């Protein structure tokens, strides 16, 4: 099952790997339904993450107008 602590990139990598599995020689019908369900959950998670994530912008306190 998708892990909530994973980054978007990790989830996307996992989804890509799952999708590649469907086209690979390892494909087995017995596992396909379970893998499809995982892929669907991952896709929903990724979409939710992408929509909700905000950027964290910090203006550095360091001054650059003269040599420190």
């Amino acid at each position, binding site marked *: 099952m998708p892990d909530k602590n994973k980054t978007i990139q990790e989830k996307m990598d996992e989804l890509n790997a799952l999708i590649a599995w469907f086209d690979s020689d390892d494909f087995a019908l017995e596992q396909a339904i379970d893998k499809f369900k995982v892929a669907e959950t991952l896709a929903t998670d990724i979409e939710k993450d992408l929509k909700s994530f*905000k*950027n964290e912008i910090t203006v550095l306190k360091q001054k650059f107008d003269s040599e420190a």
Partner: protein
Amino acid sequence: MENVLLSVSDFVALTNQTLEYAYPNVGVQGEVSEFKISQGKWVFFKLKDAESVIDCFMAMWQLRVPIEDGMTVVVQGSPKLTKWGRFSLTIKAIRPSGEGAIKKSFEILRAKLDAEGLFAPERKRALPRVPKKVAVISSIEAAGYADFIKIVNDRWGGLEIDVAHVQVQGESAPDQMIRAFNYINEREELPEVIVLIRGGGSADDLAAFNDEQLVRTIAASRVPTLVGVGHEVDESLADMVADVRAATPSNAAQILVPDRKDIIRAVRAQTASLLPLLSRTIDQASTQIREHMWGALANIESHLEGVEDAIGGKRLILSQLNPETVLARGYALLRGMPKVGATIEVETAHAILEAEVKNARQK
């Protein structure tokens, strides 16, 4: 002062004190002539206009842009009377002024840095596809910075952006940007990309991005760099030396992060493509199973037919051997001893008879 008698040295010192008080830092624009560098350390030239001329002196390390005779420049410096009685300007900063001079200085420096290989494609490093930690060097008051942040926020989330607020225009801008680059590069936790941005402006406004030391600092950055300065038509040495060059600050934002809408569309399309694939695979598997079953059935049937044929043959042979069949053809079955006077049993197809042997002879 009328009755004060000064030595020559004291007079020179007093004059310098007065000048320093009156003109601690004066800006002068003029045309350069008799430009020369002495011992690789000192720079001497004259600054002139149609009517006047003044000697100028500066340390070589303060010369940040290429200067040639005939160039119009703006200098920042302080006037001084030397102990040999010559009046000169001690220059702290010099920059080309006017389109022609800026362009000429730009071309000279570009050729020099290009010859050193600073713009070579093989030096360029790729940016991470989706960075997590980014440093931005810009003025937070600049329109270009606001455009960049807006587009980054629209396109992507989850980024940690540290912003180094610096001047991006004017005499102190190159040094501030250099300090920001050095500060970021020396931090314990490095970002994955350093983005340097500034919106559009005149050639004079963007001159800071053609500073030789800034260009060398960008080239030496441990962290991959993305530079977007000015409008699309603007060209600066800072963006030429960057690992990735953006046409504008907005374009830098587009290069830095993917668009979440595109990713969502792609993810949806990817998972949606699995369903038909899955049902196609199931269909193929069931067709294959059905074909195997038909094949097996056909095999069984053909085997059965063979067995039936064999049984039929055997049955025919058996029926030929059946005594009833022989009796039906008119033969009779005799039981008992064939001796004269003995009673024997005669079995035909339809009756069983008892008979007495009246005569018996050898054949």
